[in-house]
């Protein structure tokens, strides 16, 4: 407050100044000294007298009962001022209100307001101050008072008191309702987000969170120690394998003999294939990827060559988009001049397991209609009309799907498979359960099967490289395993010696 008074240009700063300071609190008597009473306007003198008399009634011990002569004369000399009986209610209203200190000393003269505005009579519509009685609520009731509801109600009251300013309803009050929700602004209710939990419950929550976090946390794997000899070792192994496979092929060697002992699976395959009648229809499923053509093509050529010797009617189908390409390549290798009359491409069979089931239930829905009108597929309307089904695959899943979906529809007709060595562990159980009637697995079976009909077929040409490569790989695995064992033993021994010292 002192700073505000100091900044005001109208307020003198000297300690001897007798003029009241702005926002100074206290009664007019204490604020206005008696010697300055003559300088005050006449209308203010009357008001101060009335206020002084009111104060005297409230605090009889502090103020004298009778006014001074100067005050009485000043009051009489105020013609425009209201009589003392009319001034009492005004003074009561002033002092009955619980005004703050800074507002109690706030007078119109402090703000240089014109006298006429300060002396303006009250509006007739204004409520009588005596009607407004201050609420005397206990403190705990005031604390429970719904503030939001009060604010909303007050706003609604303001809306209801809206006076129309335009149109034919100008001058009427609260005629049109205010649009609901348009001007009604209400603070959102706040809710506490603190859970009422005790320490034990918090510990249990933390324990549960740790359990869940431990389930999803990946186990940290220590970084692998790089071995400086790793890259040279890789080059050395690659060079050994390349040389071992390249030299026999380049030399055209026939060093290693082909085994003559065939297993039950290959014997069943050969006997079933031999039992196919001349000119019988055969379904050939080409389901291997081009990457495995080096292993699968020699085997497939051996089997198809036997079927072609019997003039079997070959129908090729594939569940792989590249299967059609591999089938055409296979036939081009077997029949370079394209002289074989009875073969047809049914193409790609989409849909995976569902596609196989559709084909097994009704083969005529696959491929072009013209294919089924050809001599190769004449008389075939069901899967069981094929004399044999031969599946060429490198993937165990593809072979399993054909067993599961198509084998029941063959109704006793043989299902044979030519498979890659990597698919054997997963597909051999189907041969043991007699769901597959014959198996040819890898180059090993291919060499045995081929030598029954060809003395120097494609499998035989690669046989030396295959055997030498397998021998070298097995040797490298054994040597690597022994090296790892010895290294681990030496490391453990060194650790024990360090512990002993």
């Amino acid at each position: 407050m002192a700073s505000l008074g100091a900044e005001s240009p109208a307020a003198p700063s000297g300690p001897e100044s007798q003029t009241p300071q702005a926002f100074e609190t206290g009664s007019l008597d204490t604020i206005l000294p008696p010697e300055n009473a003559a300088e005050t306007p006449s209308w203010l003198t009357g008001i101060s007298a009335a206020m002084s008399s009111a104060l005297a009634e409230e605090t009889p011990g502090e103020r004298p009962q009778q006014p001074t002569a100067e005050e009485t004369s000043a009051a009489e000399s105020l013609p425009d001022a209201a009589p003392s009986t009319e001034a009492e209610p005004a003074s009561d209203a002033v002092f009955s209100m619980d005004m703050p200190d800074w507002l109690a000393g706030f007078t119109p003269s402090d703000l240089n307001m014109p006298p006429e505005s300060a002396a303006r009579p009250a509006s007739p519509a204004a409520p009588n101050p005596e009607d407004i009685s201050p609420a005397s609520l206990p403190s705990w009731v005031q604390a429970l008072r719904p503030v939001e509801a009060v604010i909303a109600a007050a706003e609604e009251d303001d809306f209801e008191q809206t006076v129309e300013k335009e149109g034919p309803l100008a001058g009427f009050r609260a005629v049109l309702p205010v649009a609901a929700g348009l001007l009604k602004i209400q603070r959102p209710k706040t809710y506490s987000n603190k859970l009422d939990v005790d320490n034990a419950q918090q510990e249990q929550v933390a324990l549960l969170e740790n359990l869940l976090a431990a389930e999803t946390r990946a186990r940290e794997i220590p970084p692998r120690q790089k071995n400086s000899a790793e890259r040279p070792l890789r080059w050395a192994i690659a060079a050994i394998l390349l040389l071992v496979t390249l030299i026999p092929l380049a030399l055209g060697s026939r060093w290693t003999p082909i085994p003559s002992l065939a297993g039950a699976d290959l014997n069943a395959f050969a006997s079933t294939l031999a039992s196919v009648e001349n000119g019988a229809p055969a379904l050939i499923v080409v389901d291997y990827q081009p990457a495995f053509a080096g292993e699968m093509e020699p085997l497939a050529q051996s089997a198809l060559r036997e079927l072609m010797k019997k003039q079997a009617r070959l129908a090729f189908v594939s569940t792989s988009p590249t299967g059609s390409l591999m089938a055409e390549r296979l036939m081009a290798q077997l029949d370079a001049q394209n002289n074989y009359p009875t073969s047809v491409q049914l193409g790609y069979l989409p849909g995976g397991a569902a596609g196989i089931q559709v084909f097994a239930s009704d083969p005529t829905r696959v491929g072009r209609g013209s294919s089924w009108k050809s001599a190769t597929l004449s008389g075939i309307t069901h899967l069981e009309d094929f004399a044999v089904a031969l599946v060429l695959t490198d993937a165990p899943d593809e072979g399993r799907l054909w067993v599961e979906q198509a084998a029941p529809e063959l109704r006793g007709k043989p299902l044979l498979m030519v498979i890659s060595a990597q698919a054997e562990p997963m597909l051999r159980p189907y041969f043991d359960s007699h769901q597959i009637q014959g198996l040819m697995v890898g180059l090993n079976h291919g060499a045995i099967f081929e030598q029954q009909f060809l003395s120097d077929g494609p499998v035989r040409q690669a046989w030396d490289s295959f055997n030498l490569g397998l021998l070298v790989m097995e040797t490298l695995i054994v040597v690597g395993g022994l090296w790892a064992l010895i290294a681990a033993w030496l490391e453990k021994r060194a650790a024990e010696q360090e512990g002993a010292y």
Partner: protein
Amino acid sequence: MQIPTELLTGILGFVFTLLVFSYLIGDNPLFRVAVHVFVGLSAGYVAVVIWQQVIINKLIEPLINGGWQERALLLIPLLMSVLLLGKLSPRYQVWGRPVVAYLVGVGAAVAIGGALMGTLLPQAQASLALFDLSAANPRPLTETLPEAVFILLGTLSTLAYFQFSTLNKSGKRPLLFSILGQTFIAITFGVLFAGALTASLSALIDRMAALVQFFDLLLFSL
């Protein structure tokens, strides 16, 4: 001058074989070029095959040349295909959900039915048949019984290894049976690894044979 097709394919095969073998010195741009070419060629070929053999042969051509009944039936997959295209847009992907649900449902039904009737039941029946003591069994009991016991032991011990249970009364797990199952699993993985190794060696031999054949052709052509 006309370049023979075999010579051209041989040169390309030789070059791409060297590009792939360059991975021996580590990942390098030459290897990546070869991989990108293979992936691009495969994707392009698959797209052409599907467009011709599925969309043209099985949908568009029957819609144009087929009978009224065939056309009416083909409207269903055509509508489903159009709805499935909605999956391309986040705004319309909800259109493709019923189609995807249909595909997943049909695929699951076919796969589960096939696995149950084509694998589980026949394999269980074949394993039980090894214990058949009747005269209907063509194989002698001395041959089938050890095999049956071996299969039963391997199956049960493998299942015991994958069983996560609480400790028994003595505070220990049945370790011996679990170790036996672990041994069976390790042997199985070893067999699978040997099969993959053999197949990879066959692919390597095929590549080497192609290189030898190419150089033979190159030398003879010169």
